[in-house]
Each structure stands twice: as structure tokens, then as C-alpha cells.
């Protein structure tokens, strides 16, 4: 009960608890020269039901737009996953806390408003990704409710916002990513120590890969069907006591490389990233990281792996070619979450959740110097993050 010792607190009778942050626009801190280009990202505040659009460019970083999301103003609906359509005209958001099903939303980038009512998906729909043709979204139904039973990946046909498939994969699927060639969707199973590949044509499971420490390799379809799961009844996404849990991967994220050759899996419990050959379906190497790798992204130029360290409260920059750690930086607040990299591979935008009433943060890192160049405060529990667009300077 680390939390109790950290935060169980009381105030003297006359002292009111601190107010929650109320942010509209907030100046960012800047540590180096502003970029010439301008970048826009979205970040979700999971415990404030907000979508923030952040601009980073000449003049620094700021919250440019703050949008509410949800159906009920006095219920916390928990926006968690976000992705922008390939054309950049829409973005999609999942809200995890439903009664009990979570929802999938489609927003118009221009107006910042939902284009229609959301649709229900499964229990706690979390991370999502969109196929390159813009037709389908694949959403993991994380299902952190109750017993660790196999959950699913929902396929949503985006033009009509229709759930067309809900494919059972494993317990606590997380980290939905579609390969750059659009042929497959990948997610990992936090409680089953697996990487699962779906066909984006049939929406069915095509392959499984065990990431159990020391036993990495393909999972025979029959073994998966027979429920060869490792149902550890604890939450690796937490700061909870891990002492009773067999130290295995507990994967939290997967990202395919832009060259289609590799998949990178964050093992949150063993503090490493696994590199898996996508074609051969074998483990290539282990890349050690700091404490609790959570989300990661390969830079579009293929040079870097940027990994958020959830328990380590920081971010790590890895050389993809050598696996060497190039730098490790502390986040500006606690609980590092997601990362997205600009298309020119110049900047990494990292969401950091914060705790309790603390504001969430988006820390921005220069990928040449690995220094934090800006930080923007957002509402509570900054979580899902997605790149919207960039603009080169007019004279470039």
C-alpha cells in the first residue's frame, strides 16, 4: 500500500483541501530555442474528461484548445485512447468508464465537436489505432473490471461509426497499433504475456507470440485456445506490490517499425523492450530500459525508440540500431504515460499523468539533444496522446 503511505492525508480543520487545477491556456516553460516549424498534438485528461489541443512552435508551447468530452457532466468518463485520421480531418477518442461499456467517439478536427453520438464498445476501451486507408479503427477493450478474463479488440468501421467485430484476444489487451502497411493490428496482453496479431482484413487473430520472460516465441493456436494464460491477479499498471508476481514481461505496449520489419514490445515488469522480427516471428533482442517501460514509439526516421517509464517517472531515448540508452530524463510530474513523435522526428511529446489534483503535463523533448524544451500543464491525468499536424515555416 504505497499509496496510503504516500497520500493518505488529512488537513487541519480550518484548511480547505487545495482546488483542482482549472486551466484554459497556460504558458509553457522553455529550456531552449523555439522550433521553426509548428506542431499540434492532442492529449487527453482522463480524470477531467478533457481533450487538449497543444501547439508547439515559435513562441513556445501552449494549450490552444480545451474540449469537453462525455455524456454526463458529473461522471468521470475517462478519455483514454486517441488517434487522428490519416487525412487529419477527424480524430477518434475512447472513453473508458461506462455503465459498464465504454464509448468510441468521432470528432471533427475543424469544429472540435463530435460528429455524432458515440457508440458503445466493450469494457474500458483504451488504446486505438486507425488503418492507413482511414476505414477502420482497432480498439482494445482493456477491461480492468473484476476478474482477469479474456477481453477483446473491437473493429470500428469509421465512415459510419459501426462496430463490425469484437474479437476475443486475451486478458487486459493494451497498446493497439496498426502496422504501417495496414495489414495487421497488434496489441499486447498485460495479464497473459502475449503479443497478438490481428488481420485487418478478417478482423480475426492471425498469430500470437509469447513474451513470457525466457520463453519468448510463437504461441500455437491450440495453446491459446486452450487458455494457456498467465492470469496474475494484480495490476502491473499500478504501483502496487509486485512481490507475489512472477517476474515476467507484463507487456503494456507494442509499436511496429516504419520499415515493417520489427515490433517493439514494452515489458513493464522486466524493464526491457523486446524487439521481435515481424516476418520470422522470433525474438531478436532485449533492450534494457529504466523502471517500468510503459508506452513507446519508434521515430519515423527509424533512428530512435522513445520509451516512457511509468514507474521511473521519466522518459528514455534508445538508439534503435544499437539498443544503447542515449539519455534518460525525468518527467515534470509523476506517472509518465504516452509518447508521440513529430513526423520530422525532431520532437517527442510525452504525456505525464500527475497524481490526485495535480495537473497533468505534456513534456516536449528535442530528439537531437534529448533535452526537455517545453512543458505544458493540462488537466488531471494526462493520458492518450496523438499527433495532429505540423506546419513548416513559410520561408522553408
Amino acid at each position, binding site marked *: *500500500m504505497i499509496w*496510503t503511505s*504516500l497520500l*493518505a*492525508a*488529512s*488537513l487541519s480543520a480550518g484548511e*480547505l*483541501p*487545495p*482546488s*483542482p487545477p*482549472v486551466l484554459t*491556456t497556460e504558458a509553457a516553460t522553455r529550456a531552449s530555442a523555439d522550433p521553426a516549424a509548428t506542431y499540434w498534438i492532442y492529449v487527453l485528461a482522463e*480524470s*477531467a474528461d478533457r481533450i487538449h489541443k497543444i501547439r508547439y512552435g515559435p513562441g513556445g508551447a501552449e494549450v490552444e484548445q480545451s474540449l469537453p468530452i462525455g*455524456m454526463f*457532466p*458529473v461522471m*468521470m468518463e*475517462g478519455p483514454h485512447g486517441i*488517434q*487522428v485520421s*490519416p487525412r487529419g480531418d477527424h480524430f477518434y477518442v475512447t472513453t473508458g*468508464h*461506462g*455503465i459498464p*461499456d465504454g464509448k468510441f467517439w468521432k470528432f471533427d478536427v475543424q469544429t472540435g465537436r463530435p460528429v455524432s453520438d458515440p457508440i458503445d464498445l466493450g*469494457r474500458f476501451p483504451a488504446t486505438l489505432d486507425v*488503418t492507413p486507408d482511414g*476505414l*477502420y479503427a482497432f480498439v482494445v477493450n482493456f477491461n480492468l*473490471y*473484476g*476478474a482477469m478474463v479474456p477481453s477483446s479488440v473491437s473493429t470500428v*468501421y469509421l465512415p459510419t461509426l459501426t462496430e*463490425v467485430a*469484437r474479437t476475443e484476444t486475451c486478458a487486459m489487451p493494451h497498446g493497439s497499433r496498426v502496422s*504501417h*502497411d495496414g*495489414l495487421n493490428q497488434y496489441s499486447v496482453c498485460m495479464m497473459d504475456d502475449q503479443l497478438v496479431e490481428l488481420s*485487418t*482484413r478478417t478482423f480475426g487473430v492471425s498469430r500470437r507470440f509469447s513474451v513470457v520472460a525466457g520463453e519468448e516465441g510463437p504461441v500455437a493456436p491450440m495453446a491459446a485456445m486452450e487458455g494457456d494464460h498467465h492470469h496474475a491477479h494484480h*495490476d502491473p*499498471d*499500478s*504501483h*502496487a506490490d509486485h512481490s507475489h508476481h512472477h517476474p515476467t514481461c507484463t507487456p503494456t505496449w507494442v509499436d511496429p517499425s516504419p*520499415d515493417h520489419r520489427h515490433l517493439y514490445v514494452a515489458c513493464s515488469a522486466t524493464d526491457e523492450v523486446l524487439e521481435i522480427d515481424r516476418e520470422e516471428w522470433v525474438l531478436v533482442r532485449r533492450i534494457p530500459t529504466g523502471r517500468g517501460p510503459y508506452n513507446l514509439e519508434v521515430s*519515423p526516421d527509424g533512428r530512435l525508440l522513445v520509451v516512457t517509464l511509468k514507474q521511473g517517472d521519466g522518459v528514455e531515448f534508445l538508439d534503435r540500431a544499437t539498443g544503447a540508452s542515449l539519455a534518460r530524463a525525468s518527467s515534470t510530474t*509523476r506517472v509518465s504515460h504516452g509518447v508521440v513523435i513529430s513526423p520530422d522526428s525532431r520532437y517527442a511529446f510525452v504525456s505525464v*499523468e500527475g*497524481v*490526485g*489534483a*495535480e495537473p497533468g503535463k505534456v513534456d516536449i523533448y528535442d530528439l537531437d539533444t534529448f533535452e526537455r524544451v517545453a512543458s505544458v500543464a493540462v488537466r488531471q*491525468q494526462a493520458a492518450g496522446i496523438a*499527433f*495532429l*499536424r505540423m506546419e513548416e515555416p513559410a520561408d522553408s
Partner: protein
Amino acid sequence: MSSHAPHPSVGPDAAARHAHRVGSRRVLSLVGGALLLPGLLLAQEPGVVVQVEVEPASIQIGAGENTPISARALDARGNEVSAEFTFAAPRGAIQIAGGVLLAVEPGYHEVVVSLFPAPEVRWEGEEPPSTVVPVTVGWPAVSEVHVTGGSALYEGSTVRHQVSAHHADGSPRPRRAADVRWSSSDPSVATVNEFGVVRGVGTGTVEIRAEVEGVAGSVSYDVRSFPAEQLEISTEARQVRTGDVVHFQVRALDGQGNEISDLPITWSHTFIAHDSIGSHVGGSGITRDGRFVGEYAGEYTILANAGRLTATHTLWVEHRGVVQPVEFRGQGRVGNQHTSDLWVWEGVDGRDYAITGTWGSGGWALIWDVTDPTNIVRTDSIQVDARTVNDVKVSPDGRYATMTREGASNRRNGLVILDLAEPAHPVIAARFDDDLAGGVHNAFPTNDHVFALSGGEKYVIIDVSDLYNPRRVGEFQYPGARIHDVWVKDGIAYSAQRPYGGIIVDVGDGRWGGSPENPVFVSKTGPTPEGGGAHTVYPYYQESTGRMLLFMADEILSREGHALGEGAGRSLVVDPYDPETGEGGRPSMSSGYMHIFDITDHENPVMIARYHVPEAGTHNTWVEDDVLYQGYWEGGMRVVDVSGELMGDIYTQNREIAVFKPFDPTGYIANAPFVWSAMPHKGHIFFSDFNSGLWAVEVTPREQMIP
């Protein structure tokens, strides 16, 4: 028209041509440094797909049936191109696998068949070509039709009939989807109209048929000549107020003075307002069993009709006259964050306390000494890992309190149990999140057990005889659950399950064999009229009538479809006003109302009344001594007389005793009443307001005019 080929098989540089991720997006790629734009050059090329053709092009099929479906890709010359496809159809309605379409849900659906963008495939246009296949799924055939009506039909009398149709699997055909044709075997004996209202017009035998898609059900009557010569109506009610339910007795007598027990009776009334305006419609009507309730003061004439006979009884209905002053006594102001739930109790030290939660903040619960409601003093504050402490409650014996957590930093939400041995300064006894990680929206503590909601799915039952070592002993999940609240009284758990209404479960009463370890389903109320809103339940034994009632409140935090609020009915921003941006500071709006069920027979709940304030929505509920204390969001804290038999909309019956709206200019959102919960305690009413904290008011006696 443009085309592109986002795959490595087309063009000189496969890698560069590929669609690739840009940040989290994917964009079309560069080819040799130039954007690969229009595919006009490609469009006419052999092998470039311009069309997807599906066989069949449209489908009409019955639910449960299947049919082959296939697609092929064609180039501009009409030649088939080797390709694969995705089939997108609403998964609950249509399932497609292995080239076979299975129809599941009746209705109109569409299947979008799109070219799958495999690497070797080229196509015209930005998106892969696709074709929409309309699919009409018919209902399964009706196999049975049932007609219900009256026990007898006489010449000149009328009886309304109802029809139900079922499929072979026993599932019912919705009334809206059933085209019913009524007919009479002999219209000279009885006629029937399109609503199933049958009127005897002659004598003899007659069959009344209802036909649905060729399947018929019927009832038969031996229509006899009208036997009654006299109709009498009576009631024991003398002094009647608005809201009082008056029971009428009717007797039909033949020429010899014999009573005819099966004569169909229809009821109606007329009304003259006491101020003679005469414009009110008045009254919520009379049910078939002869009950009447008046909504307005005035003169009502009740009419019982059978054939050519009509009996009347005139009543004078007085204004209920229950309004009392409500006076402010004190406030525990919380102006820097939102306040959620509250509970008031007498502590083991004999003083009175309240606990309030906070919402969208740092996970605080506040403890107040309310012994003197005019001087509310905050004695302590407790913080847990959460952003919202949505629900707070105290066990009946005052031994412990529960705080529910949402927005924990590690997403392991759950329940926190407070030891109230020193009520002014509670301490955390235990933190329980086994099976509760998804978030606990509400919980209900009894002396020995806590019933804690788990993520909208179920409630988990926790033995708390040892506060410091809570132990999970059971759970209950209704199939397809949508649970929002649970309340336990005398061994029966009542839960509000949104679209399903209230669910009644034996968790220790024992009549149905239930226990905390083995909860047993008893019954359900069914959906509320506007559907989807059942939020709170409050079981109440009404001593004056011997009835068990279930108050079930909606929670609808929008006013979509209402003239007040349409277009701005859902204000999701609950922030204070920001003078820099001009945003925030706006009150929220709600709708929904209270549904009241008679559950004296727990196995057969019957909806009997409603409490519906038209321009606001219900939230939490308390009933004590025949008085309802209702948190009615922007409608304030409302006190309502629920004594006696209830029928109709009690809002329109002058049953409201008092309304208090907590305006606070220094509130988190200024002057924006939004009442979460209300609770009476030792002569005062305490309530929590979302924007301004804890309030104490008192309903005072009405001053008598001294002549």
C-alpha cells in the same frame, strides 16, 4: 477522380511509396520526392481496381437465416482483378464469415464491402473502392397470437382488448412491428375497432380475432342482452385533498335488484376549477378499477358508464395545503471544488457529524460537526488516491464509513473504509480493491457488509465485521448489467440498473434462499418510461398503508428534446468562470424524474406513480416518515409529502412541502444550485450541493393566521 497506389509493388521505390506513420498519423507518401497524386494515369490501366461488385447486390432475409455473399474486383475494362475484401456490418445485426452472411437482428442494415488494400493491389481513388449492400432482415415468422379482453360482453357495453404475438422460439414480436388486423365473426353481434375496442351491438355468440401475419388469436363471447337497470356509484371518501387516491365502488343491478358482477364499466370525470376559470383539464383520471385522484382543487364529477347507464358522484377536492416555510440554518461552504455525496449520522460520541465527498479534485472527503446546524464546523479532511470520491455513507451503527474512489493514479480504484471510533477524526481502516479496480461509483454499508459497485457491472459483497480486514464474500451481476446504485434494506438489495430499471435480490432476507454469500434474484421492475435512466433506488415501507414502495430516480444529465435546454441541454463544462477566456461558470442542466413502484409483492413490482418536476432532473433520494427528500439537481432540494396511497404525478398534486435552492455567490460555480443528496437528521435537512458544499435547512411550521 484520382488514384494512387500506396503499396510497394507499384513504382520504382517501394519503401518511399509506402504509406507511413507521421507521428501518430499516416499520410500518403512521397514518390521520388513528389506527391503521388492523381491516379488518372493508373485508372485506365489493366489491373487497377475501379469497382467492387458484390453478389447478391441486395439481400432480403429472415432473422436466423443465412446466405452466401461474395465480392469481386473489376478494373476499368471490366476484367476481374485478384483481390480480397473487408466486410463491414453491424456486428450485433449481421455476421459474415467464410463467405456466408448470417442475419441476426431484424431491420434494415448495410454491409460495406471494401477492397482490402493488400500490397499487390492497386485501385482508383483515395480510399479503396467499396460497395454498399442493403440488407433487410425480416422478423421470424409469428407462430402464436394471444388476445385478452374481459370476462363478459353485453349488448351496449364495451371492452378493450389487447394482443400479443410470439415467434416459435418464444420471443415476443414488438407491438410496433406487428401489423394487427382485428375482426369480428359477426358484426351484428359485436364490432371491433383498430384499437381492439369491442362493443356489443346485438346478442349471440361472436369471435373477436386478431390476426398478425396470417396467424390469428381470438376470444369468444356469448353476448347477452344488457341486463342492468340501475348503476350505483359510491365512495367512503368525504374530505378529499389533491393527491388523495379515492376508491369508488360501483354496483350494477338488474330489474330484480340482483347485482351483476361482470358488467364492463368505463370511467371518466368532469371538472370545474374552484376559481371557476374552468380551463384546467384536472385530475390524472380514473383507472379501470375505479380509483381517482384529483390534481387541482375544485369540483369533480366521476362517471361510471355501462351500456346506456351512467352513474355519477361529485366530489369537492381541496388544495392539499402542505406547503411549509424552509429556512436556512447553516452552511459548510466548499467553494474551491465540487462537492459530491453526503451522509449525516450521530457519532459514537453522541455528537452529530456529516461526511461529504469531493468531485474532480484530489480525492478528499470532508468531516463536519453538525451538532449545531447553525454552526457547522469542519473537523477533518481525509485524502485518498482518487480524483473523485463519488459516494460516502456510514453504517447504521455509526461504526464505519465508506468512501468510493474513482480516478486513482494507478487506475486501481476501489473502496476505502474509515474507522469512526473517533468520529471527528476518522482514520483509514482498510483499502479494498479486489474486483473493484474499474471504479466504485456507489456503495452501501450495512452493519456487517458493504455492497460495492464494480465498474457498472455488478456489486461485490464484502464482510466488514473486522474493519481492518475486509473480506469478499459474494457478488451479484444481473445479465447484461448496467448498474449504477444499490441500497439494502432488511436483507433485500435493490439496485438501479439503468435500462432494466430496478433489480430486487435476496441477500439475506431468506424468503428466496438468499444470503450475502449466495444472492438470489427475486424480480425486476422493468424499464422506466423514458428508458435508460434508472439511477437511484430507495426502498421504503409505508406504515400508513402497509405497502412497500420503491422510489427509483432517473439521472439524465441533458435536456435533449426539451424546449428548455434543446441545443444547450448538455453542459459538460463544470468549471468556474474564467474571465480570461469567458469560459465556464455556467450551470448544468438535467432532466428525468422519480418513478414510484409498489413492491409489496416483491415478485411483482407495479409502477404506481411518479414525481416529475418538469424543468430539472432527479438525483439522490431519501424517504422518511412519509416525506420524500429529493436532490433535484438545478431544481434544488425538494421536500414532498408521500403519505397515503400514491397515484399519478405527485408533483402536480400539490404534494410539495418545500423547495430550497442553494444560491451561493461564492460557489465554485457561482449561484448555480445543483443538489446532489439530501438527508433529514434530527429535525433538520442536510444536503450537499455540487457547487457550494454542505447546507443545513429546516422546514418550519406554517404560521397560523390569528383572526
